[in-house]
């Protein structure tokens, strides 16, 4: 394993894109991001334009996905809401992964009392229902997109920390770490140069599921009325509005539901591809 990080990475990408499903998942996610970043590719309508005369209109040429309970264009709200939902998923998971990485690497690498203290802290955090913490923080700071992303991140990093700690524990016993140490590498260098790249794959898999989870947490918060603020759309709050109209305004719940499903599946397939591609035992297949 003396090869540099960049060649490991190139190798990894090559294997990743040989997996058709993973590539498909990656393309779907990429497309969603492109549309969310540039909504005008799909529609020019204002997602917040209220039209009292067209409340809950079924899909038509003018409104391809129908209108919502205030006569707003659902297609446009889906596209703009996608940006919020994808952002929440991405940023929240980013925060969770970053914290999890740091805590897990330190605990796993240093072991002994550092490990003990950090893991007990993880235990404590796991003891609080994340829902309770989210409610408390939202009560303090008020709901805003940023607060929601941060609080989801801060309450969902423990799984990542445990995972990385376990990886680190086994990685640090490997020969290449001993070899690096023999060559005079310091702790930080060993952690970042040798352990981190190898521990990253399972974390990425975890993160892909985390993104999906965060999107779902946001929709639960919307259900309880403390999600993204009105009139800003998110897939979660479109879906919640759909709940009360489920019997006749199917378009309000089916489209955001499908969007969440496609996103979750896309991330999952991508994550699985990453796992396979990173698994050295599969090399050469």
């Amino acid at each position, binding site marked *: 394993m003396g090869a540099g990080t960049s060649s490991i990475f190139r190798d990894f990408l090559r294997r990743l894109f040989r997996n058709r499903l993973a590539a498909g998942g990656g393309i779907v996610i990429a497309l969603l991001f492109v549309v969310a970043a540039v909504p005008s590719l799909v529609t020019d309508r204002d997602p917040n334009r209220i039209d009292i005369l067209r409340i809950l209109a079924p899909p038509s040429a003018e409104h391809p996905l129908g209108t919502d309970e205030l006569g707003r264009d659902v297609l446009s709200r889906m596209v703009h809401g996608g940006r919020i939902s994808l952002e929440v998923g991405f940023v929240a998971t980013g925060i969770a992964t970053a914290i999890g990485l740091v805590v897990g690497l330190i605990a796993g690498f240093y072991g002994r009392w550092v490990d003990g203290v950090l893991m007990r802290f993880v235990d*404590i955090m*796991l003891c609080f229902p994340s829902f309770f913490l989210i409610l408390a923080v939202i009560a303090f700071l008020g709901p805003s997109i940023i607060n929601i992303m941060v609080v989801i991140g801060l309450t969902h990093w423990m799984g990542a920390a445990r995972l990385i700690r376990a990886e680190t524990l086994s990685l640090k016993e490997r020969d290449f770490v001993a070899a690096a140490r023999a060559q005079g590498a310091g702790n930080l260098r060993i952690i970042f140069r040798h352990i981190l790249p190898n521990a990253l794959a399972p974390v990425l898999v975890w993160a892909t599921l985390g993104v999906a989870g965060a999107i779902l947490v946001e929709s639960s918060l919307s259900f309880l009325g403390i999600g993204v603020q009105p009139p800003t759309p998110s897939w979660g709050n479109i879906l919640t509005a759909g709940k009360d109209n489920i019997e006749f305004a199917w378009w309000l719940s089916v489209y955001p*539901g499908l969007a969440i499903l496609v996103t979750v*599946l896309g991330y999952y397939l991508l994550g699985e591809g990453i796992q396979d591609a990173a698994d050295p035992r599969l090399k050469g297949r």
Partner: protein
Amino acid sequence: MLRYIARRLVLTVPLLIGISLISFLVIHAAPGGPVEMATDLNPKVTAEARERLRAYYGLDQPIHVQYVRWLGRMATLDFGQSFSRDGKQVSEKIGERIPVTLAINVLSMLLIFLVAIPIGVYSAVRKDSWFDRISTVVVFTGFAVPTFWLALLLMILFGVKLRWLPISGLVSLEYDSLGLAGKIWDRTSHLLLPVFVSAFGGLAGFSRYMRSNMLEVIRQDYIATARAKGLPERKVVFRHAMRNALLPFITILGLSVPGLLGGSVIFESIFAIPGLGQLFYQSVMSRDYPLIMGALVIGAFLTLIGNLLADVGYALADPRIRTE
């Protein structure tokens, strides 16, 4: 091993105290209190009445005094009296909600195991087959579809259109006048939809977990050896591979212990089930401090014990760890 367990158990006490202290501070720091929640924007309430209520609940004391009092009562396992107006004990309020939450969670956990393990094993053995792909989509649909949406759809189908199942609640209004068989069917029919919905959402995690464990095991040398010995494939899969792949499930079982008493507000309010999730949500919203503390401490205790069981169980089951 025993020393390890003993040490972890002893550690539980300071952890619980730490958790309770943090919880206590968090809930008291959150805006509003139980008195304000009951009296806000009520024209008939004077400042004096409000003060009286505060004194009544002991909220006029400094916060550290309140905490020490609470801790003192906890030492005798007394969770105290709820601030809600029925004046019930916290233990009674939590106790009356445990059976239904436990029943639904245990049943749905069983259902998940029954379905997820075969799916996981089969899709690992037939990796990248059509079964693998379709089951992936199905279990992720379960994961991604919001509970309330699926629940309402099933209610419309089975409750309103077909009239096969009741929509919500635990028993029918005429329950008491039913015979034994009638009573059993009545309870079962009320549980079918909630258990199914909650299990469907949990399939993805478990089946995927089982699948990856299985894939891991299949690649091991001893499976190759078993195959090389000419053992039938079925025997290889079930006798050798699956048994080993199930080992990590012990961990999952341990980690699931606190979840058995957890409930989701959204799920419970959709099905009108008076479970712990609703109770906890309402206690947070009404700032019922003793009830929030009681629920958190019980949850924390179960989590710690579950973690311990998971670690111990794993160590006992996995020979590689035992020899260390």
